[in-house]
């Protein structure tokens, strides 16, 4: 092993052994102007904006919160940022056109490579690619079960949810769903997932053990084109980013009855929640804003101007 590598590894080790205090910040990628907006979690004002790289989209945190990952799609990389000092620490190659990714409880990063019809897993510490998995065309959303045993990759043009077993990295189910599946999320027990399909405008509830769709429904609006989906704290409700309907749909998780439609900015795609699930943040792409929703009242409590075409959002808490 080269001396330089040893140095890097020891630096990584030392860095990781210091558990980072969560800053409460909200980080937002702005796809069009190549920046990362940093929002103060207490005041909900923009703290600063960082030049991050070309076409930043997917965003996520390491399990211990010590590192922030940003997919800079046009550079084919994931950029690693210190969420406290906001310094760029390093990059790693993440395959062709990385768009969305999810971080496994073991720290590995699972990426969808839209151009290549592949999903790949990386060790973000070393940048080593661990595995490549052939999936359908235009893989998009990536979700990992809390127990770490399954990864869902949605392929938009092949209209499937691919359920990948971990650590085997074999495909357990290929589930044909509505047109252009975009995103998915798991329940706490890991045996149910919720997913969205953009063009068919649907949400669905899927049994992870059988690979069967248990329930599906429209999202109540022709222009809905749903994207991100998240569960409330008690998992009785799902929040769906309603795309060009410019609303967040609050739906009963068991019946898919629409409980409320919360007006937000234009073309809402990204969603993130605080750990206590009391606040929900949305990226409103065309408006260039982040809306903050109080999940007790299901009302917008603040609209924050960010960069051009905000895409992904994550909370460091």
């Amino acid at each position: 092993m080269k001396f330089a590598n040893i140095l890097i590894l020891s630096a990584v080790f030392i860095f990781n052994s210091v558990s980072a205090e969560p800053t409460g910040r909200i980080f937002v990628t702005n796809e069009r102007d190549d920046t990362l907006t940093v929002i103060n979690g207490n005041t909900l004002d923009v703290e600063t904006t960082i030049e991050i790289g070309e076409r930043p989209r997917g965003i996520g945190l390491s399990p211990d919160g010590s590192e922030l990952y940003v997919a800079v799609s046009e550079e084919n990389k994931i950029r690693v940022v210190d969420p406290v000092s906001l310094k760029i620490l390093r990059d790693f190659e993440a395959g062709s056109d990385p768009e969305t990714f999810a971080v496994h409880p073991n720290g590995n990063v699972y990426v969808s490579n839209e151009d290549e019809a592949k999903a790949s897993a990386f060790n973000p510490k070393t940048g080593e690619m661990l595995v490549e998995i052939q999936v359908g065309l235009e893989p998009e959303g990536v979700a990992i079960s809390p127990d770490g045993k399954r990864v869902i990759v949605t392929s938009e043009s092949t209209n499937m949810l691919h359920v990948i077993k971990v650590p085997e990295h074999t495909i357990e189910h290929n589930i044909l769903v509505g047109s252009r599946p975009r995103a998915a999320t798991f329940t706490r027990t890991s045996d149910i997932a919720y997913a969205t399909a953009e063009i068919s405008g649907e949400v669905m509830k899927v049994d992870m053990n059988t690979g069967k769709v248990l329930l599906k429904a429209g999202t109540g609006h022709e222009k809905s084109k749903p994207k991100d989906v998240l569960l409330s704290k008690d998992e009785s409700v799902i929040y769906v980013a309603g795309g060009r309907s410019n609303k967040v749909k609050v739906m009963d998780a068991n019946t898919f009855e629409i409980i409320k439609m919360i007006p937000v900015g234009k073309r809402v795609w990204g969603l993130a929640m605080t750990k206590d699930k009391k606040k929900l943040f949305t990226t409103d792409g065309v408006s260039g804003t982040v809306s903050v929703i109080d999940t007790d009242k299901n009302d917008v409590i603040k609209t924050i101007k960010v960069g051009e075409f905000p895409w992904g959002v994550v909370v460091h808490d």
Partner: protein
Amino acid sequence: MFKNIILKITYFFMITFICLAKVSANTIEANFVYVGDEGSSALLGVKQGLKEANLQGQFLNQKYNLDVISSAKVTEHDFSGYIAILTAVDINTYKALTSTHPDMPVFNLSINDDDLRAECINNALHTIPSLRMKSDAEKQWKKKETDSDARAQAWHHDFKKFAARDLNKRFKKNHKIEMDDYAWAGWAAVKMTSDTVARTNIVNTSEMLNYLKQDLVFDGQKGSNMNFRETGQLRQLMLLIENNKIVAEAPVRGVAKPPTLDSLGTLSCEK
């Protein structure tokens, strides 16, 4: 010794047979035939669609094949065993094909004639837009931008929305040229047919024709659910191009009357 060999051979055939039976029991095969010029971009679109169909098919045990024949060979070719005929031929050859194979979907990837739509041939499916669809799109845009001389197209290599960007990238990577209207029409025909096979397991031609005409919900990377008119024309968004740049989409917002996709082209059949 001899008995042993016989036994081994028997086992070999038994195992081979079991394996084959298992594959054929689970695998659905669907065959397309393309009739037309081998050098046309429509054929490249068809090949792109086929590649994508097989990529999807590998997850569902479905396999798609393509035969290519020139229009000169039409009369002698046996068209049985295909799920659909894809054509980039002259209008007379096209009409002849539709009438000699009345139970098969016969896709038109190249002819823009409006009268052909108005004939409402039951098994004719036009994924390429008609002339009238183009002129209607241009008129709508003129109402908004009086000085513009933009021309309407079905597709453009610079189209990015609705993941059109991804399709353009894939096509260019595989075929080294930009995707055009004919290539899109070829890709769309294969894609909607293979999507139907994937969803319904339909491999019978008349059932396929019915499904495509009655139940189709197709995205086509143009952002909306497309389907066929009674005329056999695929309803679709058009792009307005000026100086090789996309300046607008038609139906033009604020100009076209809803249902907006039907503001483009002929709707009714001739008496």
